[in-house]
């Protein structure tokens, strides 16, 4: 049971947004789709939900092609930047409409979440502030109960308190009704500990696709007096380094060996790894 993406290519004119992407999302895991702005994240999610048509390649959900297939598409829900409901509709009516479109939509839960976030359900969708428009879309996503939930930059426009609430609610939901979740984000530090499996996309290509613990374990950082660090680094794969006065810190790809006295070791966080990787790619 999975979403299988095979050799997907998407070109807009002569701009190639996705270049031969092959991926799989499943196993009721939480995936992070990580990439800078313009990397191709939204395009990929749009193709998974048949909103965009690929130039080449196939997408299947539990073995069925998504293209014009309601059964397959009914299993996947995408929370994107656009609102899917008529602008004139009230939030309450939209919850009702969602129930008609999707049998598994839990309206009572949606109302409960709205109260929790302080979203006035009598308001029309078009009159919601940016933050509450996002919250409205997230509530639909959290209540829809499809086996696959795709979240495109879910916390954009949310304040710190609401972001925190959203992450907790998502994990609560995930514990109660496990499903496969894909969180696309460029705000990696916040989502890092939620993610079990990381997919890093850059310029339309997948450059990493593995458990996030593997990524953070595949690099480490050393710091100490610049001279000592430099001689230690000889022959090693350096991702990034910076010097502050006589102190040098470097992020190194690979497993750390025994460090000479005077050097400090530390692990790297997912965001540090991501930034180092992007900087390395920039140099290519």
């Amino acid at each position, binding site marked *: 049971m999975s979403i299988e993406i095979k050799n997907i290519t998407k070109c807009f004119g002569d701009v190639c947004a996705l270049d031969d992407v092959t991926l799989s999302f499943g196993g009721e895991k939480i995936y992070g789709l990580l990439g800078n702005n313009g990397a191709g994240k939204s395009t990929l999610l749009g193709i998974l939900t048949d909103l965009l048509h690929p130039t080449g390649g196939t997408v299947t959900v539990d073995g069925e092609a998504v293209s014009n297939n309601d059964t397959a598409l009914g299993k996947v829900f995408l929370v994107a930047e656009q609102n899917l409901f008529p602008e004139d509709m009230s939030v309450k009516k939209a919850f009702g409409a969602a129930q008609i479109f999707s049998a598994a939509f839990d309206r009572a839960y949606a109302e409960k979440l709205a109260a929790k976030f302080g979203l006035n359900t009598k308001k029309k969708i078009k009159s919601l502030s940016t933050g509450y428009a996002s919250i409205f879309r997230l509530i639909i996503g959290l209540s829809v109960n499809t086996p696959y939930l795709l979240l495109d930059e879910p916390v954009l426009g949310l304040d710190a308190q609401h972001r925190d609430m959203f992450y907790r609610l998502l994990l609560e939901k995930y514990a109660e009704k496990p499903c496969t979740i894909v969180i696309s984000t460029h705000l990696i530090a916040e989502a890092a500990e*939620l993610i079990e499996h990381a997919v890093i996309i850059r310029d339309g290509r997948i450059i990493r696709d593995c458990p996030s613990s593997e990524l953070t374990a595949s690099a480490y950082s050393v710091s100490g007096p610049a001279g000592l660090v430099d001689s230690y680094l000889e022959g090693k794969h350096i991702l990034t380094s910076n010097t502050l006065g006589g102190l040098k810190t470097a992020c190194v790809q690979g497993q750390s060996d025994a460090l000479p006295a005077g050097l400090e070791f530390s*692990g790297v966080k997912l965001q540090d790894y991501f930034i180092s990787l992007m900087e390395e790619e920039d140099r290519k």
Partner: protein
Amino acid sequence: MTFQEERPIFLQLAEQLEDGILSGAYPEGSQVPSITEYSVTYKINPATALKGINLLVDTGLLYKKRGLGMFVAEGAKEKLKAGRREKFLADYIEKLVREAKNLGLGASELSEMIKRGFEDVD
């Protein structure tokens, strides 16, 4: 609790649970928070929480009651103390001595300070 940057979260979670058992926050025979509670409270993937808790299950400090949850094993506190005493030399004393040497403190000065510490700390 806040997690430190550089060490894996599941290890820190396991240590926090151990500290709770040692301090009596989780008495022997009592139930510890569930995977979901840890996941939601600390905003971490449940697989990470499970990995941390399993470390204590593997060492016999926690045991699973089917359908109920995780409980602190009888004798867990003593077991933890024994384990930590063993690691005390490497975790604390060696670090202490290294720093003392960096600062130019000798053995007698250090033991004098330790004596003072015993008097000051309840």
